[in-house]
């Protein structure tokens, strides 16, 4: 049991536990904050596995942008700060499905890899990630740019009813 194994187990437990708390908590704001913990733990997992760029991107994008956006949305829509009894609380079926899938995947991986010892990978620096993207995966990278542009334009046009608003009378 190396230090890396211990760290993986610990961070994994934190991620799964806080994830479960996100879904089961009845306080909306607490759910958001538990999400921060969970995503941060996953960033920690990336760091342990040596994927530096992905870890920092995780912190920047998910923790920094997405969760902050969530909290802003909670604040601006005046969502209840205290406990909300009408929040859906997942009951037995969800727990069964989630737990079942988790255990199933764990068994699958254990059966496939057994006690294979993997050498510790090279750290995935920005340089290495860049080499891979521009050396082997240029096409999906470029097509994603179209995807993101359409998401941007779509979000704007969907949320701004004044763009292309219908006039009272017909006309261009």
């Amino acid at each position: 049991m190396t230090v890396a194994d211990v760290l993986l187990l610990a961070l994994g437990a934190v991620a799964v536990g806080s994830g479960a708390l996100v879904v089961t908590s009845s306080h909306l704001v607490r759910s958001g904050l538990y999400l921060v913990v969970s995503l941060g733990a996953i960033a920690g997992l990336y760091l342990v596995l040596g994927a530096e760029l992905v870890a920092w991107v995780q912190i920047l994008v998910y923790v920094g942008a997405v969760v902050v956006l969530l909290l802003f949305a909670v604040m601006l829509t005046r969502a209840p700060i205290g406990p909300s009894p009408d929040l859906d609380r997942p009951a037995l079926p969800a727990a069964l499905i989630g737990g079942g899938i988790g255990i199933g995947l764990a068994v699958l991986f254990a059966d496939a890899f057994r006690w294979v010892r993997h050498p510790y990978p090279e750290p995935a620096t920005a340089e290495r990630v860049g080499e891979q993207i521009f050396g082997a995966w240029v096409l999906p990278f470029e097509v994603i740019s179209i995807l993101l542009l359409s998401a941007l334009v779509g979000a704007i046009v969907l949320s701004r009813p004044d763009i292309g608003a219908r006039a009272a009378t017909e006309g261009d």
Partner: protein
Amino acid sequence: MRSQAVDHIALLPLYAAAATAVLALLADLFVAKRAVTAAATLLGALATAVCALAVGPWDPTFCTTGGCSWVPTWPAAVTAALFAALTAAVLALSLPALRLGTAPAGEFCFLLACSMTGGVTIAYAGDLLTLIVGLETLTLPLYILVGLRRSAPDDSAADGRAATRAASASVTFFLISVISTAIALLGIALNYAATGTVHLNLLGPAPTPFAALAGVGAALLVIGLAFKVAAVPLHAWAPATYDDSPLPIAAFLSTASKLGGVLALAAIVSRLDTGAVMSALAVLTMTVGNLVALRQTRMVRLLAWSSIAQAGYILAALTMGAPGVPAALAYATFFVILELIAFGVVTALRPPGADGGTLDDHRGAARRHPWLGAAMVLALAGLAGLPPGLAGLFAKVSVVGALVTEGWTWLAVVVVINAVIALAYYIRVAALLYTLPAQPGIAVADPILVYDATHPRVTVTRPVIVTLLIAATVAVVVGFAPQLVFSALM
């Protein structure tokens, strides 16, 4: 470090599609005339189709050790051209609604063109990552297009309800789509863990310790992609989403989005062993789709359930793996053309911007619009697999023939039984089109006059007529010369 070699000629269809999208935005910005924007997008879509067919099979590009990301083959070119043609057709069908202002024209054309770009990417994809990115690029603009509805300031509450339903359909579609993409990505990850590759030409059975892992990965990938074709049990989003979205967008969902899912599935099943999962999906999809369609009262929901069942026939062909892919792609091509005609006729018979209406709203429509009725009969007969829709008949024969030849006779029996069940509702719709309209309950001097007064005639606009004419001509031509489609997709 060397960057990848790029062959720009092979990429011409992608460039054309992306350029169309950008051109639509720029035209809307600088010229700001709806007609110019729509014309630019239409021309761009046609240019994409021409580029795809003109380039045809070419050397693969974006290659790395092991495989290539962009693989131009003849089937890829034909399906890319099909995506472009469907985009042009749906845009033409939307023109009356755009004229009414139900959606901002520039953004609408741009999003449709982005979808087309995603479709073209799927057609030529050479590895799983490009495939998923293409699939997402195809679907993401559709989340927005489904929910994009502008109401006029003085509109009654009815229109507001339509906007709410559209928004809820959009959110449902988005949520389920995202979950299924996550499942598909998990499948790809498991497969990568087992085999160490994502390039399609390197996919195959994994070495023994990882066989179970790879198998589960393949199954998850198939289930995630099965959502896109609305296979049972991942189909529940389809009828509600089709019904609450604008009619041309429902047409696009039913044709192009399904085609994308079929192409992605075809790429997977021809290389990985997924027969068991696919056969279960196929049987469930066909049977549930047909049985529930029998009970529908709304036109678009009936067409949605019928397209779920039709996807089941395609899944049955894909169950066979690599030998079934030509039959599946041929069926998908014939199906897409006929479905476009069906949705086009429904669009033509309804006021611009309206939804599909109930089946009773279409009663007697063929007596007032004989050519539209004939087109609808062509489409419904083709979907049922009977003449005069010869295209559909050849589609069914090719799938059943492939199943029998490869030894999947039990699945062939299920397919033909479902074909009989399906005829029951296709014939119901076709008969309803020609039924005399219901007489008013009280005695009137001139029932026809009363009917005409209470059911104002819908003028069919020119873009819709032209689209239907072209689509019907193509359906008749491939009905009499199906070898064109079969040779193109071999």
